[in-house]
């Protein structure tokens, strides 16, 4: 297994930098997820690691050596594509054997290796089938087996689970994680689904408009997002726009647009008079009155409840009619009825204040 290093990577198409200033080091055996909305440059970055796209500037190192001059086939990488890209004219067995044969592995060793891969993805019975006869999930597994058959140094995955339905997707996420951990193979996984990223990643790289916004473990990104974009993109959050009144020792006093005054933790530099947006996660909100509560309160009106099994989501409107989401444990005490006026309470520690992005 090898580490992957991206140094000052840049890709320019016509007059636009689709990827700029990407610096990243991925350790051996790590599963890193490139996360971001469509067009953020994550797929282009992945393809530069693969060698399918030539960087305009910067270097890609695999295992410490620069591979920029090497064509994809010489980089010893495996790749799973968004549309699986299984070879339709070959049965499953031949698809998996493809990489081995192209590397001139001795005939005697190809067979057992393919069998081992089939066992890994639990599809021994399908060895002779053609891709057209397989379901989406099955094709996905074959694509994975094909990519891993020749023991590459790095595994690249380009939104491979996008076309699967929810249940299958979650199953496959677990499958991918299991296989990755058992082989301890360095993996770069691209997705726009933050849920998927949280489940799979050792570390998440959030990208936006061609740049890296933040790198961190799922916990770090969730609890300490460095920008409003990340707070919003990773996990759900409530946005409360307002104006900063005073700021001292990292605590900001904010007058919200809905007329309430709250205290929040400053995320980054905030000065009095700035237009700001405060965020609070739905599960950090409680419905008051709460005994001995000294934190922030917001008067809200209850609208709808959604029972999700382990939790209950409450859609509420604040004083100016903006919708907010409160998430309570299923075992929570009574849930207010629609139309009730209640108090939403939360603590200063859970509330982040960001300067408003330039309008």
């Amino acid at each position, binding site marked *: 297994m090898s580490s992957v290093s991206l140094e000052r990577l840049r890709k320019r198409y016509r007059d636009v930098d689709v990827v700029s200033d990407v610096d990243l080091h991925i350790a051996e055996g790590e599963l890193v997820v490139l996360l971001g909305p469509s067009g953020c440059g994550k797929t282009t970055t992945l393809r530069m690691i*693969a*060698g*399918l796209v030539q960087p305009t500037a910067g270097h890609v190192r695999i295992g410490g050596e620069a591979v920029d001059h090497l*064509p*994809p*086939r010489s980089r010893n*990488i*495996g*790749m799973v*594509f*968004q*549309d*699986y*890209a*299984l*070879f*339709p*004219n070959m049965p499953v067995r031949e698809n998996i054997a*493809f*990489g081995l044969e*192209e*590397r001139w592995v001795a005939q005697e060793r190809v067979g057992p290796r393919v069998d081992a891969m089939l066992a890994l993805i639990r599809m021994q019975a399908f060895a002779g089938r*053609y*891709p*057209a*006869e*397989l*379901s*989406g999930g099955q*094709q996905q597994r074959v694509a994975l087996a*094909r*990519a891993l058959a*020749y023991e590459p140094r790095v595994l690249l995955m380009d939104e491979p689970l996008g076309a699967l339905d929810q249940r299958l997707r979650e199953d496959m996420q677990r499958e991918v994680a299991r296989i990755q951990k058992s082989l301890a193979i360095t993996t770069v996984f691209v997705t726009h689904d933050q849920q998927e990223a949280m489940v799979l990643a050792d570390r998440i790289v959030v990208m936006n408009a061609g740049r890296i916004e933040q790198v961190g473990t799922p916990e770090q990104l969730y609890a300490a997002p460095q920008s409003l974009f990340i707070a919003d993109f990773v996990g759900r959050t409530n946005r409360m726009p307002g104006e900063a009144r005073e700021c001292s020792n990292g605590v900001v006093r904010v007058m919200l647009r809905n007329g309430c005054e709250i205290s929040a933790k400053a995320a980054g530099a905030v000065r009095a008079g700035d237009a700001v947006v405060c965020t609070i996660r739905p599960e950090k909100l409680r419905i008051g009155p709460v005994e001995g509560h000294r934190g922030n309160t917001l008067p809200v009106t209850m609208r709808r409840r959604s029972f999700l099994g382990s939790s209950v989501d409450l859609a509420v409107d604040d004083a100016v009619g903006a919708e907010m989401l409160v998430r309570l444990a299923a075992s929570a005490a009574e849930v207010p009825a629609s139309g009730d006026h209640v108090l939403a309470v939360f603590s200063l520690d859970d509330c982040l204040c960001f300067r408003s992005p330039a309008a």
Partner: protein
Amino acid sequence: MLSVTGRVIPPAHRAYDAALLLAFIGSALLFLVPQFFFIRQSLLANIAPGIVGDTMSLDNYRTIIADSFYLGVFLRTIVLSAVSVAFGLLLAFPTAYLLARIGSRLVRWLIVLLLISSFVSVVVKVLGLTLLLGTDGPVVRVLRALSLGFWDVRLLHNDASVAIGLVQYTLPLMVMILFGVIQNVPASLEEAAIVHGASDWRAFRRVLLPMLWPGTLAAALISFNMNMGAFTSAVLLGGGRVLTVPIMIQRKIILETDYPNAAALSLLLTLTVILVNIAALKLRPHAVMSARGG
């Protein structure tokens, strides 16, 4: 309301059936009637130029088949057509690949150029070729200058020039067909092959070519059929030295006014084409594959 096959069909289909019937009747008359009389002609004897006998027999056919001269001409026609198809494919592949994969706005104009080239009748292209390859044309003059032609280079009036003319005739169509076929093969398949270790050539041979094969066969057959029936290039570029079946047919009509034998030759030519097409079907793989699995 039941149909011939016993399925229940909604009333709308009657309109479509009527459309088909109309088209079928018109086409059947057009396709079959002249051919019927034509076949009949070939069974009659040619008594004198323009005069035709009354009794039907297969004599015309027997004469042709028994004559090794005719067989030689047939062979030559088939070989010329096949060789032209081969060269055409060799040129059409990279061109169609470029058009399909390059993904820039240039493609539109490249296709426009291709369409212009097929719009302009083959006679014009042959005219250009005649001037280009003629004994005082630029190519010969360049060759002479390079002393490659200190013997008298004749670029025209031989099999090669006819083959070139045939390729001119069919190349644009082949490119267009292959262009459509290649577009239907996702680029990710080629990328997958390359990432997994295949060289460009191996990726082509093991992945791309098998997927392109049915389309390539179709393009090859269409071009072959066109070549077998073409005589413009053969007459003008062959200069009387290259004899193909279409030329023979033309001569029988224009010079000898021998309709029955011309008809017989024509039918044998058509039969040959049909036989080659049927034989080529054997080359078609049985598995029907879609580029996107499932």
